[in-house]
């Protein structure tokens, strides 16, 4: 066990190291002149030379890499010149909105996937199963940003039953006092039901849009797992002991079918991370994704660089945790 954890941690660290070199190549070495990117096209040659020296760009490559990564690890993620504040401040301000949206998107994806996978496998009706498979294919093929525009046109412009792209709350609603910075949780903690409903109301469309791809992915995986597990010998044994079909399915097949979905956690995180850049822009959601896409348009690449490195860190860390958890939960993988 210790040895296994050591190997996993080492390979995770190797992946982070490799990823940071890759990011360093594309974000620091290749883009022409970082000093000019910061000072803008009107800066004098002298100013640029001075900037190059202060940024340490005259040092050898390996020293630049160490400076860059050292700064990043100490929380120095650069300065966003379009906002006039450090990237860290900006990211900290924007993080709660993204976390809240991703949380509800994941909840939607997970619940919808479980319900539909169970429906399509418990009673093998061809129509239901076909519909679920079709939904999965469409969900995986759907450009999320376009789906967001589509549901906005439908439910906001045409039917007028859900709020438009105005962020996390109606302009007339005040944000609840910050405890967790998640509006739905904070509103409930303070007993402000109107605010809670308003926050939920504003979450519905963005959460479904962001959750669509993870939903499609999960429903496919769960459906396949459920079909596999229900053919296993132990299900036959359970049934032959006289346990009803429903109980055998709910108590014995379902938990086993959930296990492999744990390995998909990293992939779902990746979908949520890259999806947030696309979806938040559509809904004017004041999160990190919108910050990144706005920064791209303003060519304020310090923010984009921080986002890219952070995503890699989160992605690798989640994958390591999943590997270790899986090892603990499912004894079968320890053998192979």
């Amino acid at each position, binding site marked *: 066990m210790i040895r296994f954890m050591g190997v996993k941690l080492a390979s995770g660290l190797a992946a982070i190291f*490799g990823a940071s070199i890759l990011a360093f190549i*594309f974000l620091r070495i290749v*883009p022409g002149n970082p000093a000019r990117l910061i000072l803008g096209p009107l800066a004098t040659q002298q100013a640029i030379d001075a900037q190059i020296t202060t940024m340490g760009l005259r040092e050898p490559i390996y020293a630049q890499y160490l400076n860059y990564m050292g700064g990043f690890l100490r929380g120095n993620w650069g300065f966003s010149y379009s906002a006039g504040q450090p990237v860290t401040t900006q990211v900290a301000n924007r993080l709660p909105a993204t976390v809240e949206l991703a949380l509800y998107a994941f909840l939607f994806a997970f619940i919808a996937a479980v319900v539909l996978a169970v429906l399509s496998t418990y009673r093998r009706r061809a129509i239901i199963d076909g519909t679920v498979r079709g939904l999965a294919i469409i969900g995986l093929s759907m*450009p999320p940003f376009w789906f967001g525009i589509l549901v906005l046109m439908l439910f906001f412009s045409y039917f007028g039953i859900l709020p438009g792209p105005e962020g996390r709350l109606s302009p007339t609603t005040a944000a609840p006092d910050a405890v967790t910075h998640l509006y739905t949780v904070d509103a409930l903690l303070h007993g402000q039901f109107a605010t809670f409903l308003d926050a939920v109301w504003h979450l519905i469309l963005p959460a479904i849009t962001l959750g669509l791809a993870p939903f499609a992915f999960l429903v496919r995986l769960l459906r396949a797992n459920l079909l596999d597990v229900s053919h296993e010998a132990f299900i036959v044994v359970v049934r032959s002991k006289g346990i009803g079909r429903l109980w055998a399915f709910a108590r014995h097949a379902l938990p086993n079918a959930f296990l492999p979905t744990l390995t998909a956690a990293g992939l779902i995180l990746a979908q949520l991370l890259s999806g947030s850049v696309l979806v938040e822009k559509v809904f004017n959601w004041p999160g990190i994704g919108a910050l990144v896409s706005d920064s791209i348009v303003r060519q304020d690449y310090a923010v984009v*660089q921080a986002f890219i490195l952070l*995503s*890699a860190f989160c992605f690798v860390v989640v994958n390591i945790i999943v590997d270790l958890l899986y090892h603990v939960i499912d004894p079968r993988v320890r053998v192979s």
Partner: protein
Amino acid sequence: MASSAEPRQAASQRSAGNGPRRDTPITRIGRGLAYLWHDPVLASGLALGALLVVVAALGPLVWTASPFAIDVGSSLQPPSLTHPMGTDSVGRDLLARFDQGARISLATGAIVVVVSALIGGAIGITAGYLGGWLDILLMRMIDAILAFPPLVLAMAVTVGLGVGVTTSAIGIILTAVPFYARLLRSDVIRLKALPLIEATAALGATRTRIMLRHILPHLVSTLLIQAASVFGYAILSLAALGFVGLGAQVPTPEWGTMITNGLQYALTGQWWIALFPGLGLLLAVTATSQIADRGRDIFDPRSR
């Protein structure tokens, strides 16, 4: 050719009882079509894909309006006979732009599929067959790429190399290489243990010859299925990069940038600007994922 070998073989085994049967190209095509008749998912995927290829190839020849001509007098017009998909904010004909967008998407998708298959295939086969330190080195490189969410790495590449369709394609290729490399490597390791490879080596075949003539043919079906999924991934990513402003730049009629352009008009009643390019994307990716799905079922019966 080898790609369709397995269903064909199955079909000829089925008809073995009816005596010898002539195997001409026409009967082969006929049998292929007969097979498609019983596989509506694959058939609809292929038909959709063919339709989009026809639109991309012949569209600009049939609908000769310019995708770039600005006509402010007829801006933001809804779909009509003169402009079947309407016009955008500066009066450009959106059907002409849709056709060009189909060309850009499909061509980029095809280039990404081929280049990443060549690079990823070469990495996967050499790493798997030769093993040793080369395998370790190559796989650590692949791990570094896989440490990023794919679209995020593609963003990093376009930020580094500069925005545009070409740099986006390079970024997408970089993220697609691991898909091939990982899969082919594990296939090659499995194949390497087969007696046929050992026998060939005993006969004195060189390593290059074994890899190219004896291992590669076994990988064709895996490669084709993977190519279909990568194709869908590539056009979706290109559109996503275009949507956030890292892909095609302003006058280029790329589907993703067309959707960005339509975003600000979508809620003021001009629904057609964003609708059609998204529909094109959805159809193209759905078609390829249907083909990839069925391909997996057909070539790999274990996955059913």
